[in-house]
């Protein structure tokens, strides 16, 4: 690790002095073709397909995945989550965070290279750019050329393409929160709500800015994960590395020449690995924190090696230990610890999910009086019980109360029936003979038991207050 750190820091200083002198330069990355580029294209299609496709899916007569903020309900296929289920969401986020730790230790920045929204959307924006402006050389030439009608037209087309794509992205984003059908309908009759317009615009602008303009700068300067991931790395983490022992000394040579006799290594110093790098670094300098592990340099160098009839893998996915000629250990304490924590979290989550009762109870005491005396001379407390039926179906309930001997309960309703998704308000009166009261304040318990579904029950505690004893 120490060896790794030194390299990183040294490189950083060089980079920084450069960066502070010239500011951030626009990076023109060359298109890399190869195994990993193909893998990324698959990842882009899968992930964006999921993002753009999910809102169109229907389930039980409504949108399958709908985070219905206006109604304060999250629908995820058959499951409906209420604000009361916040803990599940928090759990999911913690599990996701832990998974990121786990996979980072194991596989380095695999996330960055293939799954990060920043990477995925940037990839699409680069496709649009390449499609309109041409390859790296054409882009550089175009940018150097003075403004002309042709240049303006090309740039205009590119930005128009980006903006349309961004607006559509914003629209889909909002459709996770407002049903897509309503949104589309309102869009076509020009009656979108102000807040929806705001969020479409906001998300669209963020996409346009991040994937069109900022790109690798997001990874280099803004991403918290990029900053923290180095602390999760160890010498057995999968990284993209250049095989220095094999490659150096670098130098140009003729194909089929006996480079070893000339005192050269396998690297022909073609700089292609630098040209394809989206963050503009030279991987041959060692691991650097800017490297997002996109493996474009692996693809391009493999290509070069093939053309030269050398073995592939001068740049490859490997581990620091492997580079140093030591064995790589897959199982290590860190992995075990992260793995166990994650397993524990997942099991707890599954347990909580399975034990989840789709009912919620709020018991409010009457605000006006602590207690009152009825005409018959009984002590009476008044409550309002809010029973939330978070299930999709209606249920009938039996209400009982205990905790005090001799307690009498009066209900306004004959039957307690809560429709699916209904919040029921139940005024309840509890009465007792003063002689049966032992203390000023006694805990009492309300039980709701469904009469039509076994195991569907909930209990709530409150206090019964009487005069000072």
């Amino acid at each position: 690790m120490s060896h790794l750190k030194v390299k990183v820091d040294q490189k950083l200083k060089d980079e920084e002095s450069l960066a502070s002198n010239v500011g951030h330069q626009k990076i023109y990355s060359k298109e890399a073709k190869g195994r990993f580029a193909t893998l990324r294209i698959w990842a882009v299609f899968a992930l964006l397909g999921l993002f753009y496709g999910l809102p169109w899916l229907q389930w039980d007569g409504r949108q399958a995945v709908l985070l219905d903020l206006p109604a304060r309900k999250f629908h995820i296929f058959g499951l409906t989550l209420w604000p009361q289920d916040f803990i599940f969401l928090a759990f999911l986020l913690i599990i996701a965070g832990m998974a990121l730790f786990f996979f980072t230790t194991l596989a380095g920045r695999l996330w960055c290279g293939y799954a990060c929204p920043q990477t995925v959307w940037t990839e699409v924006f680069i496709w649009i750019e390449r499609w309109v402006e041409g390859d790296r050389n054409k882009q550089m030439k175009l940018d150097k050329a003075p403004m002309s009608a042709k240049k303006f037209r090309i740039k205009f087309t590119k930005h128009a393409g980006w903006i349309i794509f961004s607006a559509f992205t914003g629209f889909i984003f909002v459709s996770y929160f407002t049903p897509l059908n309503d949104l589309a309908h309102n869009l076509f009759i020009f009656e979108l709500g102000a807040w929806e317009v705001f969020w479409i615009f906001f998300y669209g602008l963020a996409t346009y800015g991040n994937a069109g303009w900022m790109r690798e700068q997001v990874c280099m300067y803004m991403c918290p994960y990029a900053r923290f991931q180095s602390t999760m790395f160890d010498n057995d983490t999968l990284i993209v590395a250049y095989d220095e022992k094999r490659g150096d000394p670098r130098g140009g040579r003729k194909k089929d020449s006996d480079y070893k006799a000339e005192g050269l290594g396998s690297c022909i110093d073609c700089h292609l690995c630098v040209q394809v790098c989206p963050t503009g670094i030279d991987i041959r300098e060692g691991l650097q924190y800017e490297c997002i592990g996109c493996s474009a340099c692996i693809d391009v160098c493999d290509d070069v090696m093939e053309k030269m009839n050398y073995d592939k893998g001068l740049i490859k996915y490997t581990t620091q230990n492997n580079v140093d000629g030591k064995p790589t250990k897959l199982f290590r304490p860190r992995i075990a610890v992260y793995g166990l924590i994650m397993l524990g979290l997942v099991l707890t989550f599954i347990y909580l999910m399975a034990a989840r009762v789709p009912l919620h109870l709020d018991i409010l005491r009457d605000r006006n009086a602590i207690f009152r005396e009825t005409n018959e001379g009984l002590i009476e407390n008044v409550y309002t019980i809010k029973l939330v039926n978070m299930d999709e179906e209606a249920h009938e309930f039996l209400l009982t109360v205990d905790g005090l001997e001799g307690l009498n309960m009066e209900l306004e309703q004959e039957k307690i029936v809560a429709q699916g998704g209904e919040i029921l308000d139940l005024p309840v009166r509890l009465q007792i003979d003063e002689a049966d009261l032992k203390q000023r304040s006694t805990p009492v318990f309300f039980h709701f038991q469904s009469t039509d579904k076994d195991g569907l029950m909930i209990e709530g505690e409150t206090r019964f207050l009487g005069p000072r004893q």
Partner: protein
Amino acid sequence: MSELKNNKNDLSHVQKIIIILWLSFVMAGIATGVFFSVIDPEALRGCVTFPVMSRMGVYTVGFLLFWLLTAASSLLTSYFLRGK
């Protein structure tokens, strides 16, 4: 984290502002989520007077206020950390 220290003075103003806005955005998002999962704007209607707005509107305004707060905090922190 030596990277952070090394970098801090070498970032341009625009970069600093973007970092501040972005990280406070993330925090404001979390705060909004937690806050509104506990508190339903409709339930506040009786207690607090605010202009009539849909829940979506209250969420949005709430988020923007949180963002203002977290961004202000980050901005002040970074300002006083300059040490000059």
